[in-house]
């Protein structure tokens, strides 16, 4: 497990501006953040870094978020890591699909403030610890 006193968040996000914003925002809120620019890199980092929570985009090159989510939930070693979807897809069918695959929460990026994202991360990190 990760021994750093700050909880490690893995952010899987291909847009570099969005990734930088969330990384800085979460770091200012007291988290450590690793960024993966696509789903394939994301899977590698999950295995090597053991994050406390994953913020997962859906539409990405290499491996999309739905594939990453399915793969995580099939792996007994990884399936307990909470995954929060952070996507600009907002259709109820997308949300349902992500939840069916095991995501604990779903935020539409364009509709969520930085503070809302940070709050969600805090809540799910705390719940996962229990």
């Amino acid at each position, binding site marked *: 497990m990760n021994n750093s006193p700050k909880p490690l968040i893995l952010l899987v996000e291909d*847009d570099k*501006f*969005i990734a*930088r*914003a*969330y990384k*800085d*925002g979460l770091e*200012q809120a007291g988290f450590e953040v690793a960024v993966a620019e696509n789903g394939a890199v994301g899977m590698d980092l999950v295995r090597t870094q053991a994050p406390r929570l994953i913020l997962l985009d859906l*539409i990405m090159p290499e491996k999309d978020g739905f594939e990453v989510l399915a793969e995580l939930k099939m792996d007994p070693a990884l399936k307990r890591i909470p995954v929060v979807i952070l996507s*600009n*897809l*907002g*259709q109820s*069918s*997308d949300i349902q*699909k992500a939840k069916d695959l095991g995501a604990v929460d779903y935020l*539409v*990026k*364009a*509709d969520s*403030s*930085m*503070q809302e994202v940070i709050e969600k991360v805090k809540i799910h990190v705390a719940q996962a610890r229990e």
Partner: protein
Amino acid sequence: MSSKKNNGRNIGPRAEKGLEEMRDDFIWILTHQLRTLITPIKLFSDMLLTDRLGSLSAKQRSYVEDIHQAASRIVEVVRDILNGYRIQTGEIELVYESTCLEDLIESILEKRNSFEGDASCDIRLLKAERPICDVPVDRVLVRQVVIVLLSNAIKYSRKDRCAITVSVGLDEANDAVLIRVADKGIGIPEEARRHIFVGPFRASNALKMHPDGLGFDLYIAKLIITRLEGDIWFDSEADKGTTFTISLPLHPQTRE
């Protein structure tokens, strides 16, 4: 209809795609891309406004607030486009609930500060002699349209003469109910009238009063009401006011 295909989206070109599916994809890519482009502008301006990075001067703060507000407005437009499209294609399913119309209007007026802003208007609900109940309506959609009409009525009334009347009534001849929103505002000019519901449009006097609106609201209101098998129209006189009327069937055919 192929509008129910949401999963397994394929953004790349596929020869066998029909026109409708290509249009679906176009709207989908457009809205997703716009949201992705606008998200960092919202996030970074958000972060600047928290003062975590040092405090801003009053002027700097007001600029960043403007950036944030402008970005949020784009997000709203994107949502409007998407909603309008979903209503048109039938992707939004209707949920009919037996409703007392006055209760519905009252519940909207209870939350009037969400659309009234800093205007303070005299808004009255004129009740019918007997309450009009058991009307099957999709409350979410009807609420959306009534809020558009109310917020327009407020927006296009002079602050010192903002008086709005909402009334509900039966139209027995047409087996329908009517919801009216009447204001004493600037009115809709003659030359603008035929454009009001046709597409995104803003009348010249509306532009002068509020330059930053986008003209989607009534277009989407019309789409919604059409989907509900109803009708929407208005009577207006320059500088005297406008009355919008929504007519909804008492027995909609698509009710499940």
